[in-house]
């Protein structure tokens, strides 16, 4: 399995007036061709920042301060602005969280997608035909007519389909989907998830899925990395993570999922909140909220170790103390 994208020891800092926020603090992972890889975690754990770092679109005052992002064996952190413009859209594209505001309100949606296709030096008329074809691919009914709609005339689900159509229009080899279903209602979520997994098969793209929703992950992902406070705490394939979650945080996240089978009682929650990243807790960053913490947890930081084939965890319970 050869990696399409390989992130090595990526570090992103935000320089705020209150101090330096280490939003992404040395994470590494790989995504293979045709693989759907999920980054899961709470709000503010650095998953979206990781995605933006791969696109080299980290907003000010954020800065990538270390690591490597190898895409097709090329380090994106060394690419020039011009090269990145070539890579964005053509090689890597990104689906955003909020389809309500991700489309330019002043253009017809078809026109907007056509603009993206024209970037590949395809003549306008041909581009328009391709737009219709794309809209059919992403299951937009009455594609010919819908292409003439303005974004505000479409529902959230339709807009997200347009967005997906736009992002696959230049046939990228990697799609980053940043919370693609968060703003949508549940039935539409299911359709979008199905659409994404079909696209993976038809277009042979890899997908980096960013979400806090374990339900979506279970449906879609091949492999999962769980992020906490800027670090990956556990990584493995979907069966390893769901059937045998090792890190206490992962276990608690999965337990926090609402279940239909459970008849009554409160929803499970994880006590406490995400730590302040300007001054993160010492040792394991999860220890203030961890029910299984030991003495060593507050002093030493655990490193990511492979406990079974392809299943990594950073926790002192599994001998991660050799940091």
């Amino acid at each position, binding site marked *: 399995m050869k990696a399409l994208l390989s992130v090595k020891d990526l570090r992103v800092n935000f320089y705020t007036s209150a101090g330096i926020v280490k939003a992404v603090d040395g994470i590494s992972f790989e995504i293979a061709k045709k693989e759907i890889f999920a980054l899961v975690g709470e709000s503010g754990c650095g998953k979206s920042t990781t995605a933006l770092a791969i696109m080299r*679109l980290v907003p000010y005052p954020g800065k990538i301060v270390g690591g490597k992002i190898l895409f097709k064996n090329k380090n994106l952190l060394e690419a020039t602005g011009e090269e990145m413009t070539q890579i*964005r859209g053509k090689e890597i*594209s990104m689906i955003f*969280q909020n389809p309500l505001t*991700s489309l*330019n309100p002043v253009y017809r949606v078809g026109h907007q997608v056509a603009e*993206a296709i024209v*970037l590949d030096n395809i003549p306008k008329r041909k581009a328009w035909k391709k737009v219709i074809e794309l809209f059919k691919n992403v299951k937009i009914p009455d594609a010919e007519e819908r292409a003439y709609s303005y974004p505000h005339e479409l529902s959230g689900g339709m807009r997200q389909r347009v967005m997906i159509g736009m992002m696959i229009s230049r046939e990228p080899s990697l799609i980053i989907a940043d919370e693609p279903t968060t703003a949508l209602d549940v039935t539409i979520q299911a359709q979008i998830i199905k659409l994404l997994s079909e696209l993976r098969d038809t277009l042979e793209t890899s997908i980096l899925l960013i979400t806090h929703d374990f339900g979506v992950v279970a449906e879609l992902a091949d492999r999962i990395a769980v992020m906490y406070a800027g670090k990956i705490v556990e990584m493995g394939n979907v069966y390893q993570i769901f059937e045998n979650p090792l890190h206490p945080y992962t276990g608690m996240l999965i337990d926090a999922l609402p279940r239909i089978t459970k008849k009554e009682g409160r929803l499970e929650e994880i006590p406490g909140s995400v730590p302040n990243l300007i001054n993160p807790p010492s040792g394991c960053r999860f220890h203030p909220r961890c029910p299984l913490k030991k003495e060593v947890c507050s002093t030493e930081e655990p490193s990511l170790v492979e406990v079974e084939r392809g299943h990594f965890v950073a926790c002192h319970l599994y001998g991660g103390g050799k940091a």
Partner: protein
Amino acid sequence: MVNFDILRSGSKNISFKLGGMIFLSVIVMAIFAPLIAPYSYDEMHISDILKPPSSKYLLGTDQYGRDIFSRIVYGSRIALKVGILVVIIETVIGISLGLLAGYYGGKVDRIISFITDVFWAMPPLVLALAVVTLLGPGLTNVMIAIAVVSWAQFTRVVRAKTQSLKNMPFVEAGRAIGESDISIMLRYILPNTMGAIIVLSTLALPSAILSTTAMGFLGLGAQPPTPDWGVMLSEGISYIGTAPWISIFPGLAIVYTVLGFNLLGEGLRDILDPRLKV
């Protein structure tokens, strides 16, 4: 965003309706000037100098026996031409600087904002006077002078809009699909600032007309016998006691036009503003 809804809600907005009617009447007057004016603007009727308004000379004649009404009608051409050209120059300078400053931020922004603030701080008419003195009197130089001193408001508005727009998800999406900076500025940000620019332009138009007439009045703008309203106003000053119509009617023409354009601009702002959700 400019669509027929605007016209529909415009029909309910009094100042838009009134301003629009005045605007249209000035445009019609300018376009059909030769048909509307009974005489040419520089035709002298030596036997009929300083005649009060009558059926022959609708608004009277001046000291050379020229028909005031005809001169006012032709004058609308100059007012409109100057106003529109000045606004075009202002918007081009203002929009490009505003986009650059807002989009790139940092050092670029600081430099452009400083220049803008400097121009903003100076009294426009005084600065325009200085520029005209430098370039020499004449209508073209006056237009350049007025544009040079009043683009700052466009830069400020466009810069602020750009700053708020550049972080919108759809702009980020544009970057994610591989659009270059230029095309993001021109195709993603600029069209979304159009509402504000249209309003600002309609409000800049009357002030440009007012400034040109002021320069004309001071003898720095259009030169006689051009029927510039400002020039006419100043020519009539010496006869204000005996033949007030020479000054009063061009003055009313200025008031009419400027008031109309201002009403139109305000009306447009009221109509467009609730729609500017970004």
